[in-house]
């Protein structure tokens, strides 16, 4: 079996403070993600899960430890796009149409006609054909997140990093988007690291769920999701789903209490 696509070894992030010990965001994170695996990270608010995702993507530096992608340490200066990042807010450029937003990562890398074709293909994949020339403000929140997803997928990254992409959507749209993501993931077979604070979302989507402790974030436990694919909303009624949800919730509750309780968050 080939090595992991993403491997974190003792990854730590601290923020130095004057006259005091550094502020530790997360420490000694060890994580391997295999080809085609969908891994979710859940944890109490402020546990550093989002920060870790940004560190992996090179948006923030880490203090110690190592990040490997396909066994190599990526450099920020690398031109090759190994990671696609799906932001929490859609962060679409308002002056670009859907198609041109998707083109952002492709421009200058591909021949322009080829880039157009690829962008078109991914808009189609996320169910937005016919909306190529719409500006972001003409799209609903769910549609904007679809463009966001298409934009990250279009560069054909080794790993898709998703930072609470559905958190800002209403509950109904969120459910639909979760199902859409299951479908798209099944079609693209991407390796995904998905950060969320919603346990049910993590279980529904993932092969594996990682639970973070309270700050400083560490890996508290991890669970394989024992549910067959393809999945639909019905798995949420499955006893194994409910059991896992309960166990994860208990752990997060413990973490929140250990950090001084909910009011301290």
């Amino acid at each position, binding site marked *: 079996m080939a090595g992991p696509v993403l491997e974190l070894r003792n990854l730590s992030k601290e923020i130095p403070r004057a006259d005091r010990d550094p502020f530790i965001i997360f420490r000694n994170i060890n994580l391997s993600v295999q080809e085609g695996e969908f891994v979710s990270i859940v944890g109490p608010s402020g546990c550093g899960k989002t920060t870790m995702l940004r560190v992996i*993507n*090179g*948006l923030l530096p880490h203090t110690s430890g190592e990040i490997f992608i396909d066994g190599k340490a990526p450099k*920020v200066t*690398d*031109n090759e*796009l190994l*990671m696609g*990042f799906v*932001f929490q*807010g859609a*962060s679409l*450029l*308002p*002056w*670009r*149409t859907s198609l041109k937003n998707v083109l*952002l*990562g492709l*421009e*200058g890398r591909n021949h322009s006609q080829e880039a157009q074709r690829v962008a078109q293909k991914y808009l189609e994949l996320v169910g937005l054909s016919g909306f190529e020339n719409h*500006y972001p*403000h*003409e799209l609903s929140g769910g549609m904007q997140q679809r463009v966001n997803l298409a934009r990250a997928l279009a*560069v054909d990254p080794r790993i898709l990093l998703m930072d609470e992409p559905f958190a800002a959507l209403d509950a109904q749209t969120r459910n639909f988007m979760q199902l859409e993501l299951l479908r798209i993931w099944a079609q693209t077979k991407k390796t995904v690291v998905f950060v969320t604070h919603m346990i049910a979302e993590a279980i529904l989507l993932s092969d594996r769920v990682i639970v973070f402790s309270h700050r400083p974030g560490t890996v508290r436990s991890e669970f394989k999701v024992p549910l067959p694919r393809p999945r639909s909303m019905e798995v949420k009624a499955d006893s194994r789903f409910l059991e896992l949800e309960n166990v994860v919730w208990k752990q997060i509750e413990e973490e929140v209490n250990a950090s001084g309780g909910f009011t301290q968050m």
Partner: protein
Amino acid sequence: MNGRFHDYSSTILKGGSILAGLLLWHLLSEYFIRDTTFIVSPLVVVKTAYDMLFVTGELYPHIFASAWIFFYGFLLAIVIGVPAGFLMALSPVVRDYVSPWMMTLYTTPRIAFAPVLLLWFGIGGGAKVAIVFLGCVFPILINSFYGMRVVNRDYVELARSFRLRSWALFLKILLPASVPFILAGIRLAVGRGLTGVAIAEWFGATEGLGYLIFFAGQTLNIPTLFVGITAFAALGILSFEVLRRIENYATPWRNGLEVRD
């Protein structure tokens, strides 16, 4: 908001307001202040304007003289102000060097510079263009600077996550994000530029709308004076209209984003 009905009633209100103002002016000059060295009816102004445009044609050289000065000063302000604003936004060193000068020049009344600019650049076009430039450049520079400084951090992160090179970050993110601010600065500059034209032509000019108004004032030629003012207003409205079109063309994505009342 209510679509066509709102547009329609808005047009009626605007037109009605203009007509009411003109009527009031007419009544004042015809029945209350009957002194033609003080005020004349708008009808007299229209008649004078007609004569100056179509009978004697004497208005044209003044309009062209003012329009050219305005155009050159304005264009120069854009050509220098926009890149200077960008440089200030992108380089703290440039910012530190430029900002004390900018604040001083910006807050000093421009009319104070007029005599010295005339001394330096002579009575020809140069000094006038310089005065207009001085009026226009700061709103444009400040807005270009500000526009680039307040670019949404998320967009910059997005660029980094796609590993855009710095030129691509500038061309694809920073520049388009600043365009609405730059255009707003340019719009602000129109009024200040026209003021600059008037000031420049008060000091030693032999033609131009500012000269025309100044001369008419000295000779108590009230109809000509108002024709000059109206021509200035027309120049301003024309510039705004041109800018509005450029704006619609340059930022089509903002159509529908604008707050409508």
